[in-house]
């Protein structure tokens, strides 16, 4: 029996889908059998980020409305041994399924996968309830901005209400230099307000944007900082104690010289 983990944030645009894609991929790279479930019906993105859009035949709504079997709707990612995606429908909206439907479906997936990673839509309405229904645990993604932290806090409260206690926190798009200068909320401040365990900090990294546009999760490129952060997150989820990596940008002489020659 696997574990279902919902990736949520409340606020939109903080990196739920990116995190879902990268965490699922990182877990698959570590040899786990993983299924991603996109519950953002009507605004599906996970397939695009994963570069699997052109291989979708059936979707989540088709499964719920029994137009196909669950296995038929799963899109296998051929780059990995055991990574699957259950895409959302693009033509319907969130009301097309009920939390009970998603719960049944996730329970089914848990039987055959080590991890079921559920990508939650933004907001706290019907779509959120759908996404949370089948989850055993939750990861809350936030960015170092007041609005994102506020929404994360709200979502932690709502998760608690739906029976998912002590979710884990990912702080995405961290810019250490800005935190140091006080222009951005710093890690301690965020953690002290949200009062949940920190699972990882993902630095702001251009590679993430490039990778998403190329339909390749960042974790596949071992040289980017964000990639390393997501790999560490996946290892922590498996129980390894991996220390938080040093985020400070090196500003040594060598680096400056490299930059001067356009190599930095």
């Amino acid at each position, binding site marked *: 029996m696997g574990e279902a983990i919902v990736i949520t944030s409340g606020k939109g645009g903080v990196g739920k889908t990116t995190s879902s894609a990268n965490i699922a991929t990182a877990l698959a790279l570590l040899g786990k059998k993983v299924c991603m479930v996109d519950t953002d019906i009507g605004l599906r993105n996970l397939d695009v980020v994963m570069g699997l859009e052109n291989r979708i035949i059936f979707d989540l709504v088709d499964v719920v409305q029994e137009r196909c079997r669950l296995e038929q709707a799963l899109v296998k990612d051929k780059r990995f041994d055991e990574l699957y995606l259950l895409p959302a429908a693009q033509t319907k909206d969130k009301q097309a399924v009920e939390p009970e439907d998603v719960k049944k479906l996730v329970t089914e997936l848990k039987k055959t996968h080590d991890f079921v990673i559920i990508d939650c839509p933004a907001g706290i309405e019907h779509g959120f309830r759908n996404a949370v229904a089948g989850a055993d645990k939750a990861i809350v993604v936030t960015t170092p901005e007041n609005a994102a932290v506020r929404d994360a806090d709200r979502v932690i*409260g709502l998760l608690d209400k739906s029976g998912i206690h002590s979710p884990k926190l990912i702080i995405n798009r961290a810019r250490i230099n800005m935190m140091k200068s006080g222009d951005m909320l710093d890690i301690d401040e965020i953690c*002290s307000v949200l009062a949940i365990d920190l699972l990882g900090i993902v630095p702001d990294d251009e590679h993430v944007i490039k990778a998403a546009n190329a339909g390749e999760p960042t974790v596949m490129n071992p040289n980017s900082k964000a990639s390393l952060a997501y790999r560490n997150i996946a290892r922590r989820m498996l129980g390894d104690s991996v220390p938080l990596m040093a985020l400070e940008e090196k500003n040594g002489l060598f680096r400056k010289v490299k930059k001067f020659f356009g190599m930095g």
Partner: protein
Amino acid sequence: MAGKQHHVTIKGRKDGLVFVLDDSCPFSDLLEELEYKLEKSHQNLLNGPIMHVHVKLGKRQVTEEEKQSLQQMINRRNLVVQSIESAPDAQGKTQHRVMAGIVRSGQVLESEGSLIFIGDVNPGGTIVTGGDLFVLGALRGTAHAGATGNREAVIAASYLKPTQLRIAGAISRPPDEWEIHDATMLFAYMKDEHMEIEKITHLFRLRPNAVEIFRGE
């Protein structure tokens, strides 16, 4: 009475006698001991001029019947019962509800009376009380004390950095100068028409009725 605990203490005062009755023993024990003291050990109290007696019950709550039996017991010959009273906090004056947790964004914690909250109130979270509010933690959200119109209510927090404070009908946003950087606990209260902030040390002076006050002996 050697070896037995004293439940009844008799003290002399300018205006008469004070009977201090223990508040943790059974009521019947009190009557028994009173009987014994008045009849045997302190017999000489009964011989003399008329004496007024004040009975202090501590935290014990008594019924009318029990009050009467006390009165009957003491009212003999020259002793006259003047008053029988319990300590003020037993009369519900400072009953505080104590709760712990985190009030997160979008959540509202409501309490009819005064509340001691152990934990943080996050931005976007709200606590509403009919009485006073004491937050043992960070108050970063909104707090409304004396919501039913009690202007005497106070709001105190270990770390007072609220989004907004309300006492009765008054609303206040924290000006920047509120933030006192020493690790000190603050509270907000109403002074005339304005909300004021003061160190927690001054609570007993400014709101002597909010709590039972320790004055030392």
